[in-house]
Protein backbone atom coordinates (compact mmCIF):
# COMPACT_ATOMS: atom_id res chain seq x y z
CA UNK A 1 0.00 0.00 0.00
CA UNK A 2 2.83 2.36 0.91
CA UNK A 3 4.49 1.46 -2.36
CA UNK A 4 1.29 2.31 -4.24
CA UNK A 5 1.00 5.67 -2.45
CA UNK A 6 4.61 6.53 -3.12
CA UNK A 7 4.25 5.56 -6.77
CA UNK A 8 1.13 7.70 -7.07
CA UNK A 9 2.89 10.67 -5.46
CA UNK A 10 5.84 10.26 -7.79
CA UNK A 11 3.51 10.08 -10.78
CA UNK A 12 1.67 13.24 -9.66
CA UNK A 13 4.98 15.00 -9.05
CA UNK A 14 6.26 13.95 -12.46
CA UNK A 15 3.09 15.12 -14.18
CA UNK A 16 3.17 18.41 -12.29
CA UNK A 17 6.76 18.94 -13.30
CA UNK A 18 5.81 18.33 -16.90
CA UNK A 19 3.08 20.93 -16.58
CA UNK A 20 5.45 23.59 -15.34
CA UNK A 21 5.12 26.71 -17.49
CA UNK A 22 7.68 27.11 -20.24
CA UNK A 23 9.31 30.40 -19.29
CA UNK A 24 11.18 31.85 -22.24
CA UNK A 25 14.58 33.30 -21.44
CA UNK A 26 14.79 37.06 -21.20
CA UNK A 27 15.27 38.61 -24.60
CA UNK A 28 18.75 39.79 -25.36
CA UNK A 29 19.17 43.15 -27.02
CA UNK A 30 22.35 43.87 -28.88
CA UNK A 31 24.13 47.21 -29.13
CA UNK A 32 24.08 46.88 -32.89
CA UNK A 33 21.31 49.18 -34.09
CA UNK A 34 21.29 47.58 -37.52
CA UNK A 35 20.75 44.13 -36.05
CA UNK A 36 18.01 45.46 -33.79
CA UNK A 37 16.53 47.24 -36.79
CA UNK A 38 16.40 44.00 -38.72
CA UNK A 39 14.44 42.49 -35.85
CA UNK A 40 11.98 45.36 -36.10
CA UNK A 41 11.68 44.82 -39.85
CA UNK A 42 10.85 41.17 -39.25
CA UNK A 43 8.22 42.08 -36.67
CA UNK A 44 6.65 44.93 -38.67
CA UNK A 45 3.34 44.39 -40.46
CA UNK A 46 3.76 43.64 -44.14
CA UNK A 47 2.65 47.09 -45.27
CA UNK A 48 5.22 48.79 -42.99
CA UNK A 49 8.28 46.71 -43.80
CA UNK A 50 9.59 49.10 -46.45
CA UNK A 51 9.36 51.98 -44.01
CA UNK A 52 11.47 50.09 -41.48
CA UNK A 53 13.93 49.03 -44.16
CA UNK A 54 14.47 52.66 -45.12
CA UNK A 55 14.94 53.70 -41.49
CA UNK A 56 17.38 50.91 -40.77
CA UNK A 57 19.13 51.37 -44.11
CA UNK A 58 19.90 54.98 -43.21
CA UNK A 59 21.20 53.90 -39.81
CA UNK A 60 23.47 51.39 -41.55
CA UNK A 61 24.73 54.08 -43.91
CA UNK A 62 25.45 56.47 -41.04
CA UNK A 63 27.29 53.68 -39.24
CA UNK A 64 29.47 53.09 -42.28
CA UNK A 65 27.94 49.73 -43.19
CA UNK A 66 27.32 50.35 -46.91
CA UNK A 67 26.68 46.71 -47.84
CA UNK A 68 23.90 46.46 -45.25
CA UNK A 69 22.48 49.80 -46.31
CA UNK A 70 22.52 48.80 -49.98
CA UNK A 71 20.67 45.56 -49.32
CA UNK A 72 18.03 47.34 -47.24
CA UNK A 73 17.47 50.18 -49.70
CA UNK A 74 17.28 47.71 -52.59
CA UNK A 75 14.65 45.72 -50.73
CA UNK A 76 12.68 48.81 -49.72
CA UNK A 77 12.58 50.68 -53.01
CA UNK A 78 11.00 49.70 -56.30
CA UNK A 79 13.33 49.79 -59.30
CA UNK A 80 13.77 53.17 -60.99
CA UNK A 81 11.23 52.49 -63.71
CA UNK A 82 8.72 50.48 -61.76
CA UNK A 83 5.10 51.54 -61.84
CA UNK A 84 3.41 51.26 -58.45
CA UNK A 85 0.43 49.15 -59.34
CA UNK A 86 -2.88 48.53 -57.64
CA UNK A 87 -3.12 45.52 -55.39
CA UNK A 88 -5.41 44.30 -52.63
CA UNK A 89 -3.91 46.73 -50.12
CA UNK A 90 -4.26 49.81 -52.35
CA UNK A 91 -7.85 48.88 -53.15
CA UNK A 92 -8.51 48.58 -49.44
CA UNK A 93 -6.84 51.96 -48.83
CA UNK A 94 -9.35 53.51 -51.23
CA UNK A 95 -12.33 51.80 -49.65
CA UNK A 96 -14.56 53.70 -47.24
CA UNK A 97 -13.87 51.43 -44.31
CA UNK A 98 -10.07 51.32 -44.20
CA UNK A 99 -7.53 54.10 -43.55
CA UNK A 100 -4.89 55.00 -46.12
CA UNK A 101 -2.07 53.39 -44.17
CA UNK A 102 -3.13 49.85 -45.03
CA UNK A 103 -1.32 50.21 -48.35
CA UNK A 104 2.31 49.19 -48.72
CA UNK A 105 4.64 52.06 -47.77
CA UNK A 106 6.46 53.80 -50.59
CA UNK A 107 6.56 57.25 -49.01
CA UNK A 108 5.70 60.70 -50.27
CA UNK A 109 7.79 62.20 -53.10
CA UNK A 110 10.35 63.79 -50.75
CA UNK A 111 10.89 60.41 -49.06
CA UNK A 112 11.18 58.61 -52.40
CA UNK A 113 13.66 61.26 -53.54
CA UNK A 114 15.73 60.72 -50.40
CA UNK A 115 15.69 56.96 -50.97
CA UNK A 116 17.18 57.47 -54.43
CA UNK A 117 19.58 60.08 -53.08
CA UNK A 118 21.05 57.58 -50.60
CA UNK A 119 21.00 54.83 -53.22
CA UNK A 120 23.04 57.11 -55.49
CA UNK A 121 25.47 57.79 -52.68
CA UNK A 122 25.93 54.02 -52.28
CA UNK A 123 26.60 53.56 -55.99
CA UNK A 124 29.22 56.30 -55.76
CA UNK A 125 30.83 54.55 -52.79
CA UNK A 126 30.99 51.45 -55.01
CA UNK A 127 32.88 53.40 -57.66
CA UNK A 128 29.94 53.76 -60.06
CA UNK A 129 29.41 57.52 -60.40
CA UNK A 130 27.32 57.21 -63.57
CA UNK A 131 24.85 54.93 -61.80
CA UNK A 132 24.92 57.39 -58.89
CA UNK A 133 23.98 60.15 -61.33
CA UNK A 134 21.16 57.94 -62.67
CA UNK A 135 19.82 57.66 -59.10
CA UNK A 136 20.06 61.43 -58.53
CA UNK A 137 18.12 61.98 -61.76
CA UNK A 138 15.44 59.52 -60.67
CA UNK A 139 15.33 61.25 -57.27
CA UNK A 140 14.75 64.60 -58.93
CA UNK A 141 11.98 63.08 -61.05
CA UNK A 142 10.20 61.89 -57.89
CA UNK A 143 9.65 65.56 -57.07
CA UNK A 144 8.05 66.30 -60.45
CA UNK A 145 4.64 65.49 -58.96
CA UNK A 146 4.48 68.79 -57.06
CA UNK A 147 1.24 70.63 -57.68
CA UNK A 148 2.80 74.02 -58.50
CA UNK A 149 5.19 74.35 -61.40
CA UNK A 150 7.85 76.28 -59.45
CA UNK A 151 8.24 73.45 -56.93
CA UNK A 152 8.59 70.63 -59.45
CA UNK A 153 11.99 68.93 -59.55
CA UNK A 154 13.53 71.79 -57.57
CA UNK A 155 16.03 69.94 -55.37
CA UNK A 156 19.25 71.95 -55.56
CA UNK A 157 21.71 69.25 -54.54
CA UNK A 158 20.35 66.66 -56.97
CA UNK A 159 20.92 68.92 -59.98
CA UNK A 160 24.27 70.05 -58.57
CA UNK A 161 25.43 66.43 -58.24
CA UNK A 162 24.09 65.57 -61.70
CA UNK A 163 26.27 68.29 -63.21
CA UNK A 164 29.22 67.50 -60.95
CA UNK A 165 29.34 63.84 -61.96
CA UNK A 166 28.90 64.74 -65.63
CA UNK A 167 31.84 67.12 -65.32
CA UNK A 168 33.95 64.48 -63.60
CA UNK A 169 33.11 62.02 -66.40
CA UNK A 170 34.31 64.54 -68.98
CA UNK A 171 30.82 65.56 -70.08
CA UNK A 172 28.99 68.86 -69.97
CA UNK A 173 27.52 69.51 -66.53
CA UNK A 174 26.81 73.19 -67.05
CA UNK A 175 23.06 72.86 -67.73
CA UNK A 176 22.49 70.93 -64.51
CA UNK A 177 24.64 73.43 -62.57
CA UNK A 178 22.61 76.28 -64.00
CA UNK A 179 19.37 74.57 -62.91
CA UNK A 180 20.81 74.05 -59.43
CA UNK A 181 21.82 77.72 -59.18
CA UNK A 182 18.39 78.83 -60.38
CA UNK A 183 16.73 76.85 -57.59
CA UNK A 184 19.35 77.76 -54.97
CA UNK A 185 17.53 80.98 -54.20
CA UNK A 186 20.55 83.13 -53.41
CA UNK A 187 22.75 80.41 -51.95
CA UNK A 188 26.13 80.58 -53.66
CA UNK A 189 27.05 77.16 -55.05
CA UNK A 190 30.75 76.50 -55.68
CA UNK A 191 32.11 75.81 -59.15
CA UNK A 192 32.93 72.21 -59.95
CA UNK A 193 36.41 70.82 -59.45
CA UNK A 194 36.53 67.88 -61.85
CA UNK A 195 39.63 66.57 -60.06
CA UNK A 196 37.96 66.38 -56.66
CA UNK A 197 38.32 62.84 -55.36
CA UNK A 198 36.87 63.13 -51.86
CA UNK A 199 33.13 63.58 -51.63
CA UNK A 200 31.40 64.48 -48.36
CA UNK A 201 27.65 64.25 -48.12
CA UNK A 202 26.63 66.32 -45.09
CA UNK A 203 23.28 66.32 -43.36
CA UNK A 204 21.96 68.10 -40.29
CA UNK A 205 18.99 68.13 -37.93
CA UNK A 206 15.68 66.29 -37.86
CA UNK A 207 13.40 66.11 -40.87
CA UNK A 208 9.67 66.79 -41.11
CA UNK A 209 7.04 64.54 -39.58
CA UNK A 210 3.62 63.85 -41.08
CA UNK A 211 0.42 64.33 -39.14
CA UNK A 212 -3.23 64.22 -40.03
CA UNK A 213 -5.24 67.39 -40.51
CA UNK A 214 -8.65 68.39 -41.79
CA UNK A 215 -11.93 67.95 -39.93
CA UNK A 216 -11.68 64.19 -39.63
CA UNK A 217 -8.00 63.49 -40.26
CA UNK A 218 -8.33 63.30 -44.03
CA UNK A 219 -5.58 65.84 -44.80
CA UNK A 220 -1.85 65.21 -44.73
CA UNK A 221 0.10 68.04 -43.09
CA UNK A 222 3.67 68.36 -41.89
CA UNK A 223 5.30 69.27 -38.64
CA UNK A 224 8.43 71.05 -39.76
CA UNK A 225 11.81 69.57 -38.96
CA UNK A 226 14.59 71.42 -37.18
CA UNK A 227 18.22 72.22 -37.62
CA UNK A 228 20.24 75.05 -36.10
CA UNK A 229 23.07 74.51 -38.58
CA UNK A 230 23.52 77.14 -41.29
CA UNK A 231 26.84 76.03 -42.81
CA UNK A 232 29.28 73.17 -42.49
CA UNK A 233 33.05 73.63 -42.32
CA UNK A 234 35.38 70.82 -43.39
CA UNK A 235 39.08 71.02 -42.56
CA UNK A 236 41.47 68.39 -43.89
CA UNK A 237 45.07 68.22 -45.11
CA UNK A 238 45.55 71.97 -44.86
CA UNK A 239 42.37 72.76 -46.79
CA UNK A 240 39.24 74.35 -45.37
CA UNK A 241 35.92 74.31 -47.20
CA UNK A 242 32.67 75.87 -46.02
CA UNK A 243 29.64 74.17 -47.50
CA UNK A 244 26.26 75.94 -47.67
CA UNK A 245 22.90 74.29 -47.07
CA UNK A 246 21.61 73.03 -50.41
CA UNK A 247 18.18 71.65 -49.53
CA UNK A 248 15.61 71.81 -46.76
CA UNK A 249 13.45 68.68 -46.45
CA UNK A 250 10.57 70.42 -44.70
CA UNK A 251 10.34 72.79 -47.68
CA UNK A 252 10.45 69.89 -50.10
CA UNK A 253 7.78 67.95 -48.19
CA UNK A 254 5.39 70.85 -47.73
CA UNK A 255 5.59 72.23 -51.29
CA UNK A 256 4.35 69.01 -52.80
CA UNK A 257 0.74 70.28 -52.85
CA UNK A 258 -2.34 68.12 -53.02
CA UNK A 259 -2.19 64.48 -53.96
CA UNK A 260 -4.54 62.45 -56.16
CA UNK A 261 -5.19 60.35 -53.06
CA UNK A 262 -6.44 63.45 -51.25
CA UNK A 263 -9.56 63.41 -53.45
CA UNK A 264 -10.27 59.84 -52.37
CA UNK A 265 -9.82 60.81 -48.72
CA UNK A 266 -11.99 63.91 -49.17
CA UNK A 267 -14.78 61.70 -50.54
CA UNK A 268 -14.44 59.39 -47.53
CA UNK A 269 -14.46 62.40 -45.19
CA UNK A 270 -17.66 63.69 -46.78
CA UNK A 271 -19.38 60.34 -46.29
CA UNK A 272 -18.23 60.27 -42.68
CA UNK A 273 -19.41 63.81 -42.00
CA UNK A 274 -22.79 63.20 -43.66
CA UNK A 275 -23.19 59.97 -41.69
CA UNK A 276 -22.33 61.75 -38.44
CA UNK A 277 -24.72 64.60 -39.25
CA UNK A 278 -27.57 62.25 -40.13
CA UNK A 279 -26.81 60.36 -36.94
CA UNK A 280 -26.93 63.51 -34.83
CA UNK A 281 -30.05 64.82 -36.54
CA UNK A 282 -31.90 61.52 -36.40
CA UNK A 283 -30.97 60.00 -33.06
CA UNK A 284 -31.91 62.65 -30.50
CA UNK A 285 -35.26 63.73 -32.05
CA UNK A 286 -36.03 60.07 -32.70
CA UNK A 287 -35.59 59.24 -29.01
CA UNK A 288 -37.86 62.16 -28.08
CA UNK A 289 -40.56 61.20 -30.57
CA UNK A 290 -40.53 57.56 -29.45
CA UNK A 291 -41.68 58.71 -25.97
CA UNK A 292 -45.14 59.66 -27.28
CA UNK A 293 -47.64 57.14 -28.64
CA UNK A 294 -48.83 59.33 -31.48
CA UNK A 295 -45.26 59.96 -32.77
CA UNK A 296 -43.71 56.62 -31.88
CA UNK A 297 -43.70 55.24 -35.44
CA UNK A 298 -42.11 58.35 -36.87
CA UNK A 299 -39.69 58.41 -33.92
CA UNK A 300 -38.64 54.81 -34.53
CA UNK A 301 -38.06 55.52 -38.22
CA UNK A 302 -36.01 58.62 -37.40
CA UNK A 303 -34.08 56.76 -34.72
CA UNK A 304 -33.34 53.97 -37.21
CA UNK A 305 -32.07 56.41 -39.82
CA UNK A 306 -30.02 58.16 -37.14
CA UNK A 307 -28.43 54.95 -35.93
CA UNK A 308 -27.60 53.88 -39.48
CA UNK A 309 -26.03 57.31 -40.02
CA UNK A 310 -24.02 56.96 -36.81
CA UNK A 311 -22.92 53.48 -37.78
CA UNK A 312 -21.73 54.67 -41.20
CA UNK A 313 -20.08 57.77 -39.73
CA UNK A 314 -18.20 55.71 -37.18
CA UNK A 315 -17.20 53.03 -39.69
CA UNK A 316 -15.75 55.23 -42.40
CA UNK A 317 -11.95 55.67 -42.15
CA UNK A 318 -10.80 58.81 -43.95
CA UNK A 319 -7.45 59.12 -42.10
CA UNK A 320 -4.46 60.07 -44.23
CA UNK A 321 -1.32 57.97 -44.11
CA UNK A 322 1.01 59.62 -41.61
CA UNK A 323 3.72 56.99 -41.55
CA UNK A 324 6.97 58.93 -41.77
CA UNK A 325 10.57 58.04 -42.57
CA UNK A 326 11.45 59.73 -39.33
CA UNK A 327 15.24 59.63 -39.26
CA UNK A 328 15.71 61.83 -42.29
CA UNK A 329 17.60 65.09 -41.77
CA UNK A 330 16.32 68.64 -42.14
CA UNK A 331 19.20 69.98 -44.26
CA UNK A 332 21.42 68.54 -46.98
CA UNK A 333 24.86 69.87 -47.73
CA UNK A 334 27.84 68.75 -49.76
CA UNK A 335 31.57 69.29 -50.10
CA UNK A 336 34.12 67.98 -52.60
CA UNK A 337 37.88 68.14 -52.09
CA UNK A 338 40.96 67.11 -53.98
CA UNK A 339 43.26 65.19 -51.63
CA UNK A 340 46.44 63.18 -52.15
CA UNK A 341 46.16 59.40 -52.01
CA UNK A 342 46.46 58.08 -48.45
CA UNK A 343 44.74 58.46 -45.10
CA UNK A 344 43.58 61.84 -43.84
CA UNK A 345 41.57 62.88 -40.80
CA UNK A 346 38.94 65.48 -41.59
CA UNK A 347 37.31 67.71 -39.00
CA UNK A 348 33.70 68.53 -39.75
CA UNK A 349 32.24 71.49 -37.85
CA UNK A 350 28.59 72.44 -37.96
CA UNK A 351 28.14 76.22 -37.80
CA UNK A 352 25.09 78.13 -36.62
CA UNK A 353 23.63 81.21 -38.31
CA UNK A 354 26.15 83.51 -36.61
CA UNK A 355 29.04 81.39 -37.86
CA UNK A 356 29.94 79.81 -34.52
CA UNK A 357 30.81 76.12 -34.47
CA UNK A 358 28.37 74.05 -32.40
CA UNK A 359 30.81 72.28 -30.05
CA UNK A 360 28.73 69.16 -29.39
CA UNK A 361 28.37 68.38 -33.08
CA UNK A 362 31.98 68.36 -34.26
CA UNK A 363 32.94 65.15 -36.05
CA UNK A 364 36.26 63.63 -36.90
CA UNK A 365 36.24 61.49 -40.04
CA UNK A 366 38.98 59.20 -41.31
CA UNK A 367 39.23 59.44 -45.09
CA UNK A 368 41.06 56.77 -47.06
CA UNK A 369 41.75 58.33 -50.44
CA UNK A 370 42.37 55.86 -53.25
CA UNK A 371 43.89 56.37 -56.65
CA UNK A 372 41.29 54.64 -58.78
CA UNK A 373 38.00 55.85 -57.34
CA UNK A 374 36.38 58.62 -55.34
CA UNK A 375 36.19 58.40 -51.57
CA UNK A 376 32.59 59.02 -50.57
CA UNK A 377 31.35 59.48 -47.00
CA UNK A 378 28.16 60.56 -45.27
CA UNK A 379 28.54 62.77 -42.19
CA UNK A 380 25.53 63.67 -40.06
CA UNK A 381 25.46 66.06 -37.10
CA UNK A 382 23.06 63.73 -35.24
Amino acid sequence: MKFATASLQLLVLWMTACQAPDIPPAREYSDDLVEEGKRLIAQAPRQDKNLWRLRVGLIALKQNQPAEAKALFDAAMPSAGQILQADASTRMAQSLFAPENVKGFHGEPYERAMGWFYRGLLYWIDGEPDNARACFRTAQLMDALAEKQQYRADWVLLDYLDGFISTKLGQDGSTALERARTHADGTVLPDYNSKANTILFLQTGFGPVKKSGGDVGEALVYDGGHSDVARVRVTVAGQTVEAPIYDNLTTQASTRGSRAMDLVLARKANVKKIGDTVGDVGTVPGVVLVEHDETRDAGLALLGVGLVGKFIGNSVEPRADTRTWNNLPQHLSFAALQLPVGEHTATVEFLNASGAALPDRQKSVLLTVQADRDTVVLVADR
Partner: protein
Amino acid sequence: MKNASTAIVATALLGFVACTNVNSPNGPSVTELRPDERGFVAGLGIESQDLVTISDKMARGILGAEPIANAQGKPVIVLEPINNETRFPIDKDIFLTRIRVSLSGNANGKIQFVAREHIDKLEAERDRKLAGQVTGGEKVKGNEFRGADFILTGTFKAISSRGNAGASDYVLYTFQLIDPDNSDIIWEGFHEIKKQGRDDVTYR
Protein backbone atom coordinates in the same frame (compact mmCIF):
# COMPACT_ATOMS: atom_id res chain seq x y z
CA MET B 1 -22.73 7.05 -61.77
CA LYS B 2 -19.05 6.37 -61.32
CA ASN B 3 -18.30 7.62 -64.82
CA ALA B 4 -20.30 10.79 -64.17
CA SER B 5 -18.33 11.52 -60.97
CA THR B 6 -15.04 10.93 -62.74
CA ALA B 7 -16.11 13.24 -65.56
CA ILE B 8 -17.09 16.00 -63.10
CA VAL B 9 -13.79 15.73 -61.21
CA ALA B 10 -11.82 15.70 -64.47
CA THR B 11 -13.73 18.74 -65.76
CA ALA B 12 -13.11 20.60 -62.48
CA LEU B 13 -9.39 19.83 -62.64
CA LEU B 14 -9.23 20.91 -66.27
CA GLY B 15 -11.06 24.12 -65.44
CA PHE B 16 -8.71 24.83 -62.54
CA VAL B 17 -5.64 24.29 -64.68
CA ALA B 18 -7.04 26.34 -67.56
CA CYS B 19 -7.81 29.26 -65.24
CA THR B 20 -4.24 29.33 -63.92
CA ASN B 21 -2.63 31.86 -66.24
CA VAL B 22 1.15 31.63 -66.03
CA ASN B 23 1.45 35.32 -66.87
CA SER B 24 -0.75 36.43 -64.04
CA PRO B 25 0.46 37.33 -60.57
CA ASN B 26 -2.51 35.31 -59.33
CA GLY B 27 -1.03 32.22 -60.94
CA PRO B 28 1.93 30.20 -59.71
CA SER B 29 4.24 32.13 -57.37
CA VAL B 30 7.22 31.56 -59.67
CA THR B 31 6.84 31.79 -63.41
CA GLU B 32 9.61 31.14 -65.88
CA LEU B 33 9.52 33.49 -68.85
CA ARG B 34 11.60 33.84 -71.95
CA PRO B 35 14.05 36.73 -71.49
CA ASP B 36 12.50 38.54 -74.46
CA GLU B 37 9.03 38.28 -72.97
CA ARG B 38 7.44 41.19 -71.14
CA GLY B 39 6.63 40.09 -67.60
CA PHE B 40 3.79 41.19 -65.36
CA VAL B 41 6.11 43.42 -63.32
CA ALA B 42 7.18 45.38 -66.38
CA GLY B 43 8.09 48.99 -65.75
CA LEU B 44 9.50 51.99 -67.55
CA GLY B 45 13.14 51.02 -67.06
CA ILE B 46 15.64 49.01 -69.05
CA GLU B 47 14.48 45.41 -68.89
CA SER B 48 15.50 41.98 -70.09
CA GLN B 49 13.31 42.07 -73.19
CA ASP B 50 15.00 45.35 -74.19
CA LEU B 51 18.42 43.80 -73.60
CA VAL B 52 17.67 40.80 -75.80
CA THR B 53 16.01 42.78 -78.60
CA ILE B 54 18.72 45.43 -78.70
CA SER B 55 21.73 43.15 -78.40
CA ASP B 56 20.44 40.83 -81.15
CA LYS B 57 19.74 43.81 -83.40
CA MET B 58 23.19 45.29 -82.80
CA ALA B 59 24.91 41.94 -83.34
CA ARG B 60 23.18 41.59 -86.73
CA GLY B 61 24.18 45.14 -87.60
CA ILE B 62 27.83 44.60 -86.66
CA LEU B 63 28.06 41.37 -88.67
CA GLY B 64 26.66 43.16 -91.69
CA ALA B 65 29.03 46.14 -91.39
CA GLU B 66 31.39 46.29 -94.37
CA PRO B 67 34.70 46.34 -92.43
CA ILE B 68 33.62 43.24 -90.50
CA ALA B 69 31.90 41.35 -93.30
CA ASN B 70 34.82 41.85 -95.73
CA ALA B 71 37.66 41.78 -93.22
CA GLN B 72 40.83 39.89 -94.05
CA GLY B 73 41.50 37.56 -91.14
CA LYS B 74 39.72 37.89 -87.82
CA PRO B 75 39.35 41.49 -86.63
CA VAL B 76 39.98 41.91 -82.90
CA ILE B 77 37.21 43.73 -81.02
CA VAL B 78 37.60 45.21 -77.55
CA LEU B 79 34.54 46.09 -75.50
CA GLU B 80 34.53 49.41 -73.65
CA PRO B 81 31.93 50.21 -70.95
CA ILE B 82 28.64 51.81 -71.93
CA ASN B 83 28.17 55.48 -71.11
CA ASN B 84 24.87 55.53 -69.21
CA GLU B 85 23.23 58.97 -69.23
CA THR B 86 19.74 57.77 -68.36
CA ARG B 87 18.00 57.89 -65.00
CA PHE B 88 18.22 54.11 -64.71
CA PRO B 89 21.13 52.54 -62.85
CA ILE B 90 22.29 49.58 -64.93
CA ASP B 91 24.94 46.92 -65.06
CA LYS B 92 26.92 48.49 -67.88
CA ASP B 93 28.63 45.27 -68.91
CA ILE B 94 25.48 43.28 -69.48
CA PHE B 95 24.62 44.80 -72.86
CA LEU B 96 28.11 44.37 -74.27
CA THR B 97 28.35 40.86 -72.86
CA ARG B 98 25.04 39.95 -74.50
CA ILE B 99 26.19 41.45 -77.82
CA ARG B 100 29.50 39.62 -77.58
CA VAL B 101 27.78 36.31 -76.91
CA SER B 102 25.36 36.90 -79.74
CA LEU B 103 28.19 37.83 -82.12
CA SER B 104 30.32 34.89 -81.06
CA GLY B 105 27.40 32.57 -81.67
CA ASN B 106 26.63 33.94 -85.13
CA ALA B 107 29.98 35.07 -86.54
CA ASN B 108 31.32 31.58 -87.30
CA GLY B 109 34.76 32.53 -86.03
CA LYS B 110 35.01 35.72 -88.12
CA ILE B 111 35.51 37.94 -85.08
CA GLN B 112 37.99 37.73 -82.24
CA PHE B 113 37.16 39.21 -78.84
CA VAL B 114 39.80 39.74 -76.20
CA ALA B 115 39.31 39.60 -72.45
CA ARG B 116 40.70 43.06 -71.77
CA GLU B 117 38.64 43.37 -68.57
CA HIS B 118 40.80 40.60 -67.06
CA ILE B 119 44.10 42.16 -68.10
CA ASP B 120 45.46 42.36 -64.53
CA LYS B 121 45.01 38.63 -63.96
CA LEU B 122 46.32 37.81 -67.44
CA GLU B 123 49.46 39.89 -66.90
CA ALA B 124 50.02 38.25 -63.53
CA GLU B 125 49.71 34.79 -65.10
CA ARG B 126 52.08 35.70 -67.93
CA ASP B 127 54.60 37.06 -65.43
CA ARG B 128 54.38 33.85 -63.40
CA LYS B 129 55.08 31.88 -66.57
CA LEU B 130 58.03 34.07 -67.52
CA ALA B 131 59.41 33.81 -63.99
CA GLY B 132 59.23 30.04 -64.17
CA GLN B 133 56.82 29.86 -61.23
CA VAL B 134 54.45 27.89 -63.45
CA THR B 135 54.96 25.95 -66.67
CA GLY B 136 54.48 27.38 -70.15
CA GLY B 137 56.98 30.24 -69.97
CA GLU B 138 58.87 28.93 -73.02
CA LYS B 139 55.80 29.60 -75.19
CA VAL B 140 55.62 33.28 -74.26
CA LYS B 141 57.44 35.40 -76.78
CA GLY B 142 57.32 39.00 -75.59
CA ASN B 143 54.05 40.82 -75.35
CA GLU B 144 51.40 38.79 -77.12
CA PHE B 145 48.36 40.63 -75.84
CA ARG B 146 46.41 41.66 -78.90
CA GLY B 147 45.63 45.27 -79.66
CA ALA B 148 42.17 46.22 -80.84
CA ASP B 149 41.24 46.51 -84.50
CA PHE B 150 37.94 47.95 -83.37
CA ILE B 151 36.43 49.18 -80.12
CA LEU B 152 32.76 48.51 -79.46
CA THR B 153 31.04 50.88 -77.07
CA GLY B 154 27.74 52.65 -76.64
CA THR B 155 25.81 55.48 -75.06
CA PHE B 156 22.35 55.43 -73.54
CA LYS B 157 20.49 58.72 -73.38
CA ALA B 158 17.00 59.38 -72.10
CA ILE B 159 14.22 61.91 -71.89
CA SER B 160 12.17 61.33 -68.76
CA SER B 161 9.12 63.14 -67.51
CA ARG B 162 6.65 62.65 -64.72
CA GLY B 163 3.43 64.28 -63.64
CA ASN B 164 -0.03 63.53 -62.37
CA ALA B 165 -0.96 62.17 -65.80
CA GLY B 166 1.78 59.55 -65.50
CA ALA B 167 5.44 58.95 -66.20
CA SER B 168 7.19 58.61 -69.52
CA ASP B 169 10.69 57.47 -70.43
CA TYR B 170 12.23 57.57 -73.88
CA VAL B 171 15.60 55.84 -74.07
CA LEU B 172 17.91 56.03 -77.06
CA TYR B 173 20.45 53.21 -77.21
CA THR B 174 23.37 53.85 -79.56
CA PHE B 175 26.36 51.61 -80.21
CA GLN B 176 29.49 52.43 -82.17
CA LEU B 177 32.28 50.34 -83.60
CA ILE B 178 35.32 52.62 -83.62
CA ASP B 179 38.65 52.25 -85.36
CA PRO B 180 41.16 53.20 -82.61
CA ASP B 181 43.88 54.03 -85.15
CA ASN B 182 42.00 57.00 -86.58
CA SER B 183 38.87 57.37 -84.35
CA ASP B 184 36.61 56.67 -87.35
CA ILE B 185 33.19 55.33 -86.45
CA ILE B 186 32.98 52.44 -88.88
CA TRP B 187 29.53 51.32 -87.84
CA GLU B 188 26.76 52.75 -85.70
CA GLY B 189 23.47 51.25 -84.67
CA PHE B 190 20.63 52.49 -82.53
CA HIS B 191 17.40 51.40 -80.96
CA GLU B 192 14.82 53.55 -79.24
CA ILE B 193 12.10 52.65 -76.78
CA LYS B 194 9.45 54.81 -75.21
CA LYS B 195 7.42 53.60 -72.28
CA GLN B 196 4.62 55.22 -70.36
CA GLY B 197 2.85 54.28 -67.20
CA ARG B 198 1.02 55.67 -64.22
CA ASP B 199 1.25 54.80 -60.56
CA ASP B 200 -1.90 53.71 -58.79
CA VAL B 201 -3.94 56.63 -57.43
CA THR B 202 -2.95 55.76 -53.87
CA TYR B 203 0.68 56.60 -54.72
CA ARG B 204 0.00 59.80 -56.62
